[in-house]
């Protein structure tokens, strides 16, 4: 495939026991486009969405995101604890052996001390995961899976169909959590409040306020998320997703439950995200006005299979789509 595609899913299949939720779907998202995924209830939209977001592993198929293979499954990750216990255990055994061989006491104690020190360093590494530790893991052939947070790091942001903000945190803090993986402060930086940490936090806060401004939540930054009105909560979700500086934004029914005016505003916001931030957007939506209004391309799923793909006009005229929606005209 060409490099112009931001996301490239090939023959993605997902089975839950006997149920085939997603069946061999090929799907691409070109750079800087707005692509919609539609289909009747139970068509496999959400499953497919979750596969892209890294929640589910596909049963078969491959996903390339920004040219990177994203489904690297857990590979010997269970060996990790042995990495941190192993060297220390060897040292401790050597110390015990030296003790049995009646080596001078100080030598045994020193060996034991080094073993303890080694264990502490490795364990701290396992908690903080600095670069040297990750390199060591790779050297030892222990790989982590591509879990949701790795997808976010790779440049994928999302919102939720049913709002899942951190309700007891302020709007600003919600966005700052979204920025989490782009900030670098370690726990010792944070604890000691180093200049590096303070500068980073200050910059992050400025950026978070910019994002809140962008989605139209100026002056609401100190408000607890749960106290915001519904439409604002949806917008805050978008701002939070933008915090991780994504290349691809997944919007799961962004206008669900909104009144016509709020829907209009959300559509304007989505367009603005593309033109101003150069984002690529994947949309799941039930509101056909929204889908047909802003999408460059529409993909229709039914019973886990792709039944149509094309511009909104092409899809609207496709007889299989009309049939899938029980003859209802896709207005």
């Amino acid at each position, binding site marked *: 495939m060409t490099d112009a595609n931001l996301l490239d899913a090939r023959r993605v299949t997902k089975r839950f026991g006997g149920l085939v939720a997603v069946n061999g779907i090929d799907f691409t998202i070109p750079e800087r486009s707005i692509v919609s995924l539609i289909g009747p209830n139970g068509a496999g939209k959400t499953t497919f969405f979750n596969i892209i*977001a*890294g*929640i589910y592993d596909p049963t078969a198929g491959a996903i390339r995101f920004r040219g990177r293979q994203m489904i690297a499954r857990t590979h010997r990750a269970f060996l990790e*604890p042995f990495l941190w216990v192993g060297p220390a255990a060897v040292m401790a055994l050597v110390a015990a052996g030296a003790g049995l061989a009646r080596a001078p006491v100080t030598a045994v104690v020193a060996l034991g001390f080094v073993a303890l020190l080694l*264990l*502490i360093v490795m*364990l*701290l590494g*396992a*908690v*903080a*995961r600095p670069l040297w530790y990750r390199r060591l893991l790779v050297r030892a052939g222990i790989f982590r899976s591509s*879990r*949701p*947070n790795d997808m*976010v*790091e790779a440049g994928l942001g*999302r919102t*939720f169909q049913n709002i*899942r*903000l*951190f*309700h*007891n*945190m302020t709007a600003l*803090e919600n966005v*700052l*959590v*979204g920025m*989490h*993986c*782009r*900030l670098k*402060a370690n*726990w010792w930086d*944070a*604890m000691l409040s180093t200049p590096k*940490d303070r500068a980073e*936090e200050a910059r*992050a806060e400025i950026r978070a306020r910019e994002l809140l401004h962008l989605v139209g939540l100026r002056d609401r930054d100190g408000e*607890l998320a*749960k106290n915001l009105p519904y439409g604002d909560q949806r917008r805050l979700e978008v701002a*939070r*997703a933008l*915090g*991780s500086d994504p290349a691809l934004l997944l919007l799961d029914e962004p206008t669900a439950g909104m009144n016509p005016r709020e829907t209009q505003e959300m559509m304007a916001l989505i367009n603005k995200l593309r033109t101003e931030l150069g984002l690529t957007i994947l949309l799941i939506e039930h509101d056909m006005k929204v889908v047909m209004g802003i999408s460059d391309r529409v993909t229709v799923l039914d019973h886990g299979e792709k039944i149509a793909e094309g511009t909104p006009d092409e899809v609207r005229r496709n007889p299989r789509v009309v049939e899938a929606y029980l003859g209802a005209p896709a207005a």
Partner: protein
Amino acid sequence: MTAIATPASPASRRRPAWFLPVVSLGGVAAYYLLLRFVFGIGEGTALQQVANALSTGAIYALVALGYTMVYGIIELINFAHGDVFMVGAFVSLFFLVQVLGNTGLTAPITNLPVLLLLIGAALLVTMPLIGLLNVGIERFFYRPLRNAPRLAPLITAIGVSFILQNIALVIAGSGDESSPQIFPIRDWRLSIGEITIPYLSLFVFALAMVLMVLLQTFVGRTRLGRAMRSTAQDREAAALMGVDLNQTIALTFLLGGALAGAAGVVWGLTYGYVRSDLGFNAGLKAFTSAVLGGIGNITGAVLGGFIIGFVEVFATTLGQTRWSQFVVFVVLALVLVFRPAGILGQQVGERA
């Protein structure tokens, strides 16, 4: 009873920042007056008991923080936490015995800089070690069960508790192991007129307060603290926003363990003995504190710890040491009848 003013997650009804400290101070004063005039305890004894309660409460609060943080983030009641605290007390004991043995210092150290240095060193050794022990426990025992039904990690936690207890039994035997009381309790006392209070109680209280304020700042103000709070509220959403769950949960165990380690050091200084079943009793009280204050709430755990400390000392003051457990749990039951989520706990519906 606590000076922590900023709760980690603002309560649903916003209270002013001075509310908790002022109410706590008022509570301590009321407690003193109660002892003094209702029960007719002498002035000196009453003040001493208040100091005593502050230091006992500080230990419970430090341990309770570990329970509450772990519960807050993975909804696991970590029954092994009391025993982690016990291991902390033993590590501190071994360290102090080694140092005293190798330097020729003898138990009450009256040289202040040396004393502070030694206590600092004990904390510096014990806190990271116990924190890492807790991380190891999480890695080996709880993480594989993270998506299992909630009963599985709970039973595992009880198992880990027995494992730690029995390891301690094998290494240290079943009796009391006496811990060097390097802080001169009898000689160093604050005198107010004819009344004297051991400085140790005040030191313990101050140390606990410093650690708790540090924790509160860490959780409330830093990037990793934000990650912890977001994980506590919605684990999956946090992961989908780029928070590394494994790292965040490991960090929570590290902090909880480190505080339990500090509590272990303080225990040795205050009571002068450690035994292998220490974790059960102290753990139970600390867990009670966490529930009393509202499990999952950091300020609540501290508050609960001090309340339990005060209640227990109250029973002891009246000469009813045998009844102290009874009183503690009656208080717990009463509070839970009227506030099922604990004093500062949020009603369940708000989490969703």
